């Protein structure tokens, strides 16, 4: 943190400064100017130098503003009429009506129970912080929950490290760039994307967005994003309302339109996994829908001899190719001997 190194003003804890800022902005109907905030609000005023250089304090205020907004608190900027462009006259405020939970939003004990369970679904990753805060807000309502689903501990993961930066970039409407290893390809390619939605389908997380090179909507698997996601400074203007539902509808459509015919050995891991997804558990061969030929081929190759693909030919070939590659990797000389010093 960049605290002032000037002669020791009393140290005010971060949360006290932020709390005081929110209270002051909620209390002021017409809003406060930056100068008013820095000179009067607890946590700033102790470090404010009248007529002096307050650059670092101003930077502190900018970061605090971001923190407050990050929590979803509607911190507004108001330009006085006829004075546009004059930053010194900008006023900051938090309109009480936009801050308070609307009176018509009430929850029954049963609803609180369901929502509490929904909130515990995220127990790791970036959404667990969000849902933890949401659960605290629910509890502040003072409605005791009735627990309709006792004994359940459902859990969703967002293990992919790409999830958090994509979610933040989507929120801020900023384009991202990442290296993407398209299923079936051997090498990754850089993609520039305006992220519009994050959806989980068939247990896999996808980011849906506009691919800036193709200027077309595309959907990417998060597990195939290699390395870090770079958030650019380019903002995008596409409205993403309803994008998540549309992306899921597209994925579902793709899933419904593709069907594999599989011979599956009974009473094996493959049978247990695939029967749940089969059109009819009694069928032989089994009919199973899938979304992406390469992703499904990876899964099926993992089952080894427990599954034999009859149709379609593309899936069959993809599985055979994977099995051959795996066999080649594990016979004759080790890859480690081959790859040392070898360049791609």
């Amino acid at each position, binding site marked *: 943190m960049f605290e002032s190194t000037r002669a020791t003003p009393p140290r005010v804890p*971060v*949360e006290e*400064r*932020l709390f005081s800022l929110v*209270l*002051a902005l909620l*209390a002021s109907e017409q809003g406060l100017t930056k100068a008013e905030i820095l000179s009067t609000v*607890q946590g700033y005023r102790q470090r404010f130098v009248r007529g002096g250089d307050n650059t670092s304090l101003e930077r502190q205020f900018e970061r605090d503003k971001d*923190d*407050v907004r990050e*929590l*979803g*608190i*509607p911190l507004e900027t108001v330009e006085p009429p006829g004075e546009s462009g004059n930053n010194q006259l900008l006023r900051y405020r938090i309109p009480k009506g*936009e801050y*308070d*939970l*609307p009176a018509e939003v009430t929850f029954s004990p049963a609803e609180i129970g*369901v929502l509490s369970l929904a*909130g515990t679904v*995220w127990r790791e990753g970036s*959404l667990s912080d*969000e*849902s933890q805060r*949401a659960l605290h*807000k629910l*509890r*502040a*309502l003072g409605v005791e929950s009735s627990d309709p689903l006792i*004994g359940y*501990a*459902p*859990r*969703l993961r967002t*293990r992919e490290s790409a999830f958090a930066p994509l*979610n933040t970039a*989507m*929120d801020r409407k900023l384009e991202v760039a990442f290296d993407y*290893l398209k299923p079936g390809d051997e090498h990754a390619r850089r993609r520039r994307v305006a992220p519009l939605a994050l959806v989980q389908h*068939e*247990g896999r997380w996808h980011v849906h967005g506009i691919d800036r090179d193709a200027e077309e909507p595309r959907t990417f698997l998060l*597990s195939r994003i290699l390395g870090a996601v770079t958030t650019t400074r380019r903002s995008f203007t596409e409205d993403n309302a309803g994008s*998540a539902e549309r992306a*899921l509808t597209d994925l579902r459509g793709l899933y419904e339109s593709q069907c594999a015919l599989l011979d599956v050995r009974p*009473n094996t891991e493959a049978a*247990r996994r695939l*029967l*749940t997804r089969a059109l009819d558990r009694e069928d032989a061969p089994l009919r199973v829908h899938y979304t992406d030929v*390469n992703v499904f081929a990876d899964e099926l190759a993992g*089952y*080894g*001899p427990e599954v034999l693909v009859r149709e379609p030919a593309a899936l069959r070939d993809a599985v*055979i*190719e994977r099995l*051959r590659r*795996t*066999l080649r990797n*594990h016979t004759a000389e080790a890859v480690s001997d081959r790859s*040392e010093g*070898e360049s791609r």
Partner: protein
Amino acid sequence: MTKSTARAGAGLQGRDRLAFLLVLVPYLIEHEQVSVATAAEHFGVGEALIRESVALIAVSGVPGETSAYQHEDLFDIDWDLFEQRDQIVLTRLVVIDDSPRFSAREAAALIAGLQYLSALPGSADDEVIGSLMSKLAIGSSGRPTEVAVAASPATAALVPVRDALAQRRELSFDYLSADGRTEHRTVDPLRVESLDRDWYLRGWCHLRQAVRTFRIDRMNSVEIGENQAQHGADDLSVPSDFFQPSATDLTVTINIDTAALPMIAEFFTADSQVREVGNRSLVNLRLGHVHGFKRVVAGLGGLAEVTDPGTAREEVAAWSREALAGYGL
């Protein structure tokens, strides 16, 4: 090696504390007098956090007309009750009198959780979920973020498992174990858990005389028994992590293109180590059972190679050779 999950900055702590202060105030307004212990339990936080937060609220307020934080511009509490009896009573309020809205991302996290739960048999139906989703949308400060989860079809066996749990009765089934054998098991159900698409039963296994985890889609011929379950979740401690390292785990070394490392990240355990050699990486992974790892490796599309131990290499080779033989190759 595990990817560091530590999140940046001291700012986060301050921000989370702020969020908590803003919900604690309306809760205290709602309850005229409440003990520190009750408040801590209600929010599921430590008593120390409640005490620190109350002490901070009690000296906070607005600059006021004089810009000098006069007494009447600040919250106040009954200090005697607080310091001597650990009871909280707000005696003066400033500005805040209501709960805050949800942020767009908070609302989205709850909505996606609801969508996931809708796959659960006997959970809230579509109508309840739909109504909750619209309430969350109205109650959030921005349009909920575009995050959605498609409910996966639940395993058929989930219904009897859930019923046995609710009725506290024994459950018996044929279980396909990781090594491919089928065993008949009788279990006192303790908890139904899920991890993404997979559903698990944690239960007291009569055969093993211990708490065990069963994947529900590996169960067959599931029957609810006549007998009451002898053990319940209240009288047994169920470990929170259901994949526990055991002495029989196999450590294998995998050679993989460094760029493709994220694809196997989910198999990393705390003691996994990555060593880079040229553009490839050597990783040791501890895999639950001897018969599981060959599936993992064969499922990586040929991007990875087991280098050690030799028996594991042979097992992967045999696995893919047998599969190719099925195609007449």
